[in-house]
């Protein structure tokens, strides 16, 4: 019985991490940058759902996605696009700056007190097991999002162009592919997924502060690296790996205080054994 509860918790936590990790990994693969501010998009989505929740939860989810996507587009256009071709260090420092900017903006406009919502969708009973309905919805949503994204990347022309750009930006341009447009699409998808993840995190934690996105952001980044940064299935696998570690630790009282330490220890071990992550490719050396 405990085993089934653990599986369900693992899928739910892992699905949330995977949705965030997808944003990191796609932006890394296509724009060749670490979007340090990605975690703060989760915070933006979290605040938005808190503000809109009393009006309508559904409206709140839609507003979160729209607002996060808008912030993602503005950040890409104003902060990252002008640095296309600049040194990776300059881009990384800019991304850290964007992260701080978003946190400060939240503090100015919303205040430093944390805000919360109360969501209780009840439980369903299956024999002796009680399962939280919200947990099931989280699993269903993240699974649907991941299937949709996989189909999009695999079967649409834009999705194939994303793979082409991630592999060889110059050759993609020779095909007439507008690289800036593809990068923009990537930021839109990444921000939308972060919004959805932010919403579920708020429903679970029921409390949002300005650094709300930091921990899940770092965990999801670790997930992306464990799975192989740049790889879409890798982000999903990495997210689930961390989700299951958390689920197991959560059920074993002796381990639960060390959950974060165990997760990052696993990250280090994976990097030592396989520096490219589970599904990562060796970077082809360009002449």
């Amino acid at each position, binding site marked *: 019985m405990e085993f089934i509860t653990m599986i369900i918790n693992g899928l739910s936590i892992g699905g949330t991490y995977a949705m965030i990790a997808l944003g990191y990994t796609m932006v890394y693969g296509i724009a060749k940058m670490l979007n340090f501010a990605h975690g703060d998009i989760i915070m933006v989505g979290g605040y938005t759902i808190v503000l809109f929740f009393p009006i309508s939860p559904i409206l709140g989810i839609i507003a979160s996605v729209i607002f996060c996507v808008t912030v993602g587009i503005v950040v890409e256009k104003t902060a990252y696009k002008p640095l296309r071709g600049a040194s990776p260090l300059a881009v990384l420092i800019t991304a850290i700056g964007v992260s701080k900017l978003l946190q400060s903006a939240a503090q100015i406009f919303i205040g430093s007190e944390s805000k919360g919502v109360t969501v209780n969708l009840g439980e369903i009973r299956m024999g002796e097991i009680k399962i939280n309905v919200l947990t099931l919805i989280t699993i269903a949503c993240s699974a649907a999002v991941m299937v949709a994204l996989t189909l999009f990347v695999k079967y649409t*022309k834009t999705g*194939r*162009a994303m*793979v*082409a750009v991630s*592999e*060889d930006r*110059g*050759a*993609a*341009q*020779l*095909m*007439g*592919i*507008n*690289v800036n447009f593809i990068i923009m699409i990537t930021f839109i998808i990444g921000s939308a997924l972060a919004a959805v993840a932010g919403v579920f995190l708020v429903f679970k934690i029921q409390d949002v502060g300005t650094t709300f996105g930091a921990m899940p952001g770092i965990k999801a980044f670790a997930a992306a690296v464990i799975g192989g940064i740049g790889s879409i299935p890798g982000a999903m696998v990495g997210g689930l790996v961390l989700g299951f570690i958390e689920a197991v630790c959560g059920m074993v009282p002796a381990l639960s205080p060390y959950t974060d330490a165990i997760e990052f220890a696993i990250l280090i071990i994976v990097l030592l054994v396989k520096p490219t992550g589970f599904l990562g490719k060796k970077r082809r050396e360009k*002449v």
Partner: protein
Amino acid sequence: MALLEVKNLDVHYGVIQAIKDISFEVNEGEIVTLIGANGAGKTTTMQSIIGLIHPTRGEIYYDGQKINGIPSHKIVKLGMTQVPEGRRIFSELTVYENLVMGAYTRKDKDGVEKDFKDIYELFPRLEERKNQVAGTLSGGEQQMLAMGRAIMSRPKLLMLDEPSMGLSPLLVDQVFDIIKRFHEKGTTILLVEQNANKSLAISDRAYVLENGRIVLSGTGAELLASEEIKKAYLGG
């Protein structure tokens, strides 16, 4: 009027000047070759034309329109494309998807269908392997795919950067055959080659590049007969 006109081009990599004041043109319907040793600046010239590298001075005109400063993907839409040095096919995409990327900017579905048929007829190997991931192809097959992919955009001007590099003599002949075939269909060709013999033989005109400068130019036949060329590039 020339289809492509390069005027007083300078290109720098940092402080190193790779291209020094070169000017040349390609007229509609011609095959023009740039020959030169390794490091002469051929690839730099090709990439500058299509906007992947930004020249420090000079102008490039395509069909009378100044194109330097325009982003590459827009230049491609004007009707030129390039088979880059080292093929640079998308190894994670299938053969079919690589060809779809070649037709990325096209909206004429029927025309694209027809071009798929033509390309599969021309390269039966590509049809046999159309659902295979392109990274698993042999070097020769990859070159065929790179050429097929470029042709899928139906370019008016097709540029090829050392398409025979690393291929067996039999495949080299096939590559030159295909270039001739597309030329006969009305495509203008700008070719970069170290294989001076074969490229000069099919060229209307050619330019010789040395250390970033054009040092010689003439018709293909003239250069083939020239003593200097024989010494430097034809191993004679």
